[in-house]
């Protein structure tokens, strides 16, 4: 099978996944107890007639299958529904907020890789050394302490006590005029507009949340790097290479290549997970991302944003997995030919 055909068939395989997600989240949000109409009509003067009126206007009085049909039809036309908490179309909201989440996730992910890969490698090369112990402490600590505790602790120490970090609110200082929106990525937009004050402010505000997020995503990547590399170092090819007298540097390079496959898989999973699970971090740092958007929607019985969020995250998962598959083929040609 040619590479192009493989890509097409893999892309086609994602369609049922996404369709299933759309139906599933629709049903899930509609069986949730909590009536959006009653929530909307919670002003101090709303009576039963208002609630009935709102329900009719939102189409909530129709039978569930009809509502689902309307939802899917709208979805097919690119209409993801309307949020009643923000008063905007869901797609607009998500489109405005996704770059914020992505920027934070990518920053945290890069930080994770920068720390976890060298740490895991060092721990595997020198088992039971100080590096290995440090790796264990960091991974166990990072995965045991809830991320919001780490976040609040960071805020308390670095903002409140020491004053090194900027105020943990949003993506940029409210007193600074934000750079014109081009990509939605604050750092990129600031750099494009040559607004270095905005760039510095945005970078400063990115620091604490990405450290807090990296603290919990560090553990799986570092541990897997260590375990994978340990396994490879004990494997036959590496032993043979050593016996043949290859230089330690060459041996390590080969071993790292071999150990990469499971690490890439887990890193991909961690990235997808970070994107959807950074709700708590976004809340603590008042970060205007998709996670806090979904949480607010959940609190307000606002169904459309919730469905939109799940669908978007499913889309991201699919894309990331797809990218990982492609990467696998690059790393290990056997993967492609087997498929």
């Amino acid at each position, binding site marked *: 099978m040619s590479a192009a055909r493989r890509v097409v068939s893999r892309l086609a395989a994602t369609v049922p996944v996404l369709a299933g997600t759309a139906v599933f989240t629709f049903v899930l949000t509609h069986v*949730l*107890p*909590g*009536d*959006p109409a*009653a*929530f*909307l*009509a*919670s*002003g*101090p*003067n*709303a*009576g*039963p007639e*208002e*609630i009935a*009126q*709102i329900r009719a206007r939102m189409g909530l009085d129709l039978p569930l299958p009809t509502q689902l049909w309307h939802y899917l039809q709208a979805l097919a036309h690119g209409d993801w529904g309307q949020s*009643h*908490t*923000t*008063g*905007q179309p869901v797609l607009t*909201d998500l489109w405005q907020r996704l770059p914020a989440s992505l920027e934070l996730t990518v920053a945290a992910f890069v930080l994770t890789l920068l720390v976890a890969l060298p740490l895991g490698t060092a721990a595997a090369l020198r088992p039971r050394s100080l590096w290995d112990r440090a790796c264990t402490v960091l991974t166990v600590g990072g995965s045991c302490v809830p991320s919001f505790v780490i976040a*609040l602790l960071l*805020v*308390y120490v670095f*903002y*409140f006590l020491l*004053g090194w970090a*900027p*105020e*943990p*609110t*949003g993506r940029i*200082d*409210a*007193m*600074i005029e934000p750079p014109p929106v081009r990509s939605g990525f604050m750092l990129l937009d600031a750099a494009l507009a040559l607004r270095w*004050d905005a760039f*510095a*402010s945005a970078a*400063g505000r990115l620091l604490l949340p990405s450290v807090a997020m990296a603290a919990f995503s560090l553990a799986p990547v570092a541990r897997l790097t260590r375990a994978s590399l340990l396994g490879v170092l004990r494997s036959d090819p590496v032993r043979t290479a050593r016996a043949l007298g290859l230089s330690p540097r060459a041996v390590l390079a080969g071993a790292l290549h071999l150990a990469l496959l499971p690490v890439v898989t887990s890193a991909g999973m961690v990235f997808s997970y970070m994107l959807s699970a950074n709700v708590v971090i976004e*809340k*603590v*740092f*008042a970060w*205007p991302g998709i996670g*806090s*958007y979904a949480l*607010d929607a*959940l*609190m*307000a*019985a606002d169904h459309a944003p919730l469905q939109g969020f799940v669908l978007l995250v499913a889309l991201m998962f699919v894309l990331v997995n797809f990218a990982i598959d492609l990467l696998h083929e690059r790393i290990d040609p056997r993967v492609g030919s087997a498929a």
Partner: protein
Amino acid sequence: MDRRRFIQQGSAAFSLGTVAGTSLPLSAWAQARKDTLRVLSEGAPNSQDPHGEGVSRESLGLFFNVYDRLVNFDRAQLSPGVFKYDYGRFRGELAERFETSADGRTLTFFLRRDATFHDGKPVTAADVKWSLDRAVSLPASKRQLATGSLENPSQFTVVDAHTFRIALPRADRYTLPNLALSFASVLNSELAKSHATAADPWATEWVKAHEAGGGAFRIESFTPGQQVVYTRFDGWKGGSAPQLRRAVFQVVPSASNRVAALLKGDADVALQLPPKDLDALTDTTRAKVVSVPVTTSFRFVAFNTQAKPFDDVRVRQAIAYALPYTTLLRGANLGRGEALYGARPGKPASSRFPQPYPYDTQLLKAKELLAQAGYPQGFKTSFSYNVGDATLAEPAALLIQEALAKIGIALSIEKVPSAQWGTLQTEKKLPFFIDSSSAWFNDPDYFFRIFFQGDWRWNFGSFKNDELAKLLEQARWETDRAKYDRAIQRAIEIAFEQVPLVPLWLPTFEAALQPDLQGFTYYIHGQVDFRPLTRS
């Protein structure tokens, strides 16, 4: 200048410059900061339409700063630098003055001749009429304005460009207070109409995301759910020009971060702080806490008076005698509120409401009443609270569970997600719960009509009483103060005796401010009014 001072000033300038990170010259930055008010809150405005549906509480603050009404409540000083609206006195906002006819059925408003909207168009009586027509046509504002006999567009007449008349079927003391609410905001009718469509004649879709006002502040940027930036409208004529040039209203969900930003001087006002943070702030000089009792609200425990076992008045009284009031107020709310219990038994002291009920923790009496009602061994039921209210309701629920166990009532505590709370209350599915609520106006007959009668969510106890209904109908239109007081005192007696719900305390509105902020005014909407705020 000696060397030490030079170094100090130099380093101060340096640190400021780096913190700000701006390209502005330092003095300009400091000036910009001084003229800007930064408010941190838990929620955010979600609409710019004062007649909109499903608007958040924070939107009310936006309506007051961005739109003018014909009249507003005057204010009275509570303590140095802190004011509260005065429900009984009105002052003109768009109206220079107004007249009430002898029979009270005609109100004539004389508009300021120099007032303009943000786009420079003069404010005319036609704008006022269009806005009030819109208000009584859209459901959310319609229902509220009806409580002040404002129901039909035919009541509103344009006399000339600057004279506007309202005709009432009968004199109504709730008309003026309703006109001072955000529901009676005046919109730029031409601007709004230019965005109306056949399907949406009132341009609700457009106004939701675009202000059409003429108030003291205009909106520079509006990000729903995140932040709103206001700038002063220098052409405002509705009152004395505000000192602040700019205001930034931002959402910071974590209360501890709101406090930290206030203490570090990065924010000026922090709202919706939990009692423990407020207590901590009371001891510092880096912030001041404003506390204003909200006399139109109450925190209470309610039960479904239409279902067993709470349909028996003796069971309700037993619970009113068994609740651990003082422990609740101190333990769950750290004493922040005015007690609504422990009055001397007998007749109500005044016609004010809410007022303290003649109940206190007396377990023996409670047990006796339960036995008389046929529950000598007590009973089992569930006790619910809203998860969104957990900071206060969770400890309160545990204290109530412990206290009622002493008279044999076993409670299972149910945490209800916020999204579901409204549904369960509307459908009357909660047997026993804790909540708080508030009405727009403080008159006792208004308060009673909302909370103690009717088949709707706000009658939390699902209470029905014919005598009460008659008394309230009589008090609604009573103009003789003595007769009104007599009817209301009898109504309060019924509430004391029948216990449709058990009030616990009167909540306080609380905000933490930078110590140099003066003129903070608590208005009926419980949001920050930027107009009177000054920095000393």
